[in-house]
């Protein structure tokens, strides 16, 4: 439905120019947005992730599942170079965003993070007002007149399905919201800078089922515009909310590896790998 005449993969909202660093390429729904080719991640001498080959498809939800310590979060955080902030972390292999290597020497990690946003496990709104939380990322990039900023804030909060709940208290601290609302605020904040990919690191693990379903529904509506990668411990969540699913496992040398990748329904009904089968059916070790 998105013809080749639409050159920009995220909706062309007026307030932000295409980012520096890597040029955006034409994309269609379901095309590979990010491609990982033999990606390995090391912390010092320790290999946390070995030879991952994976495609993150545009406007689809890709879930990453696997037991604790299998390198799911490491994988996720390598996608937007968040691992750079960890000393001694090194990435090998090629990690392509629209065909350009994210780990190329002249690529600015800050620019990568603007295109690949992130939502964390625990809701972490800034200790600022709800309004300022959303405005923060936009202000980093350019000065926005008050009225325009109002529009951006409203739009992002609407997109994050939070507007109706907070429209009367935008000046209240983001910390006064409930856990689920905080997480949606974090999502609003992430989409305010108009990323192309949104990474979510167990976004619902601290939330109750109601808030969880809200976030899942939100993901479904966000996937119209963004590629989403979600790491989750909750197999039910992975199975009902994702389009593609990557199963990871820890090898005997404690490095994480990808053991199966495919469409979610197939992975949950007819897994190809015995370990995946055991894991999704709840029979572990």
């Amino acid at each position, binding site marked *: 439905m998105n013809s080749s005449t639409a050159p920009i993969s995220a909706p062309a909202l007026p307030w932000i120019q295409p980012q520096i660093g890597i040029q955006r390429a034409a994309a269609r729904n379901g095309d590979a947005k990010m491609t990982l080719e033999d990606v390995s991640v090391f912390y010092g001498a320790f290999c946390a992730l070995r030879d991952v080959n994976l495609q993150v498809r545009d406007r689809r939800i890709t879930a990453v599942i696997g037991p604790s310590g299998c390198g799911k979060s490491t994988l996720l955080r390598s996608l937007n170079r968040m691992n750079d902030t960890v000393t001694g972390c090194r990435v090998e292999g090629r990690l392509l965003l629209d065909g350009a290597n994210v780990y190329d020497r002249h690529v600015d990690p800050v620019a990568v993070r603007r295109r690949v946003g992130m939502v964390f496990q625990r809701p972490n709104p800034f200790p600022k007002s709800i309004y300022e939380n959303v405005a923060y990322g936009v202000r980093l990039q350019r000065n926005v007149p008050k009225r325009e900023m109002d529009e951006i804030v409203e739009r992002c909060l609407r997109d994050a399905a939070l507007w109706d709940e907070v429209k009367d208290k935008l000046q209240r601290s983001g910390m006064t919201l409930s856990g689920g609302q905080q997480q949606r605020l974090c999502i609003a904040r992430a989409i305010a800078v108009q990323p192309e990919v949104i990474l979510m690191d167990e976004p619902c693990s601290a939330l109750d089922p109601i808030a969880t*379903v*809200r976030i899942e*529904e939100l993901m*479904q509506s966000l996937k119209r515009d963004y590629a989403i990668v979600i790491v989750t411990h909750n197999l039910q969540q992975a*199975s*009902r909310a994702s389009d593609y699913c990557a199963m990871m496992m820890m090898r005997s040398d404690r490095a994480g590896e990808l053991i199966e990748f495919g469409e979610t*329904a197939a992975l949950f009904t007819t897994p190809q790998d015995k370990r995946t089968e055991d894991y999704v059916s709840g029979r572990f070790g």
Partner: protein
Amino acid sequence: MQKSRSALDHDLTQNREDILRMGSMVESLIHWSLNSEGVVSIGQVTEGAQRGTTIRERIEKRSLQMLATQHPAARDLRCVIAAMHIARELERSVHHCSGIARLNAHDEEVRRYAILQHMREHAMTMTHSSMDAYVRGDAKLALETAARDEVLDESRTLLMRTMLTTDSQPAAPVLLRAIWTAHNLERIGDRVVNICERVVFEATGHLSDASLPASRRWMENTTA
């Protein structure tokens, strides 16, 4: 934000539509397989039977995926289970119809038996109202529908008795075909009873033999 679980709801609706599709197919197949006026093509009925199987497989596959990925509970879970059972019953009905068509495609004599035509009409209305009950989740209507199966049972007995005791006994092939046709129609009625049981199960969560008057009374009390 009232639309939570849209994926599950979507699949449940698809299942429901497929069941209704099969239901109306069964209805028209009953009609065509024993049509007293027109000449029915076996090919058409067989093709219908194949389509029934296809739809049933589709429903089963979808239900399996729902169970694996959507984790339905409570009524949703019952909906999925019921859909699988009902699809299976409808598929059997379709095959009964193709059996009837095969028996009578070239024999107008049997088709003209009034009692068979009566059974045919009855099986059609039963199928129809079982689908009504399914759509509305109406346990009461389901129980009423199941109760009407007795008519088919009695009709078949009546047919056997009259055919075997009458002076102008038809030729053996006709006799056998008529009896087999009645048998098939009676089986369709049993399938409808099973469907109705599943409708009651879906609506109330209780599963018991709807053809037994005792359980019927008990259930009428509990569902009222």
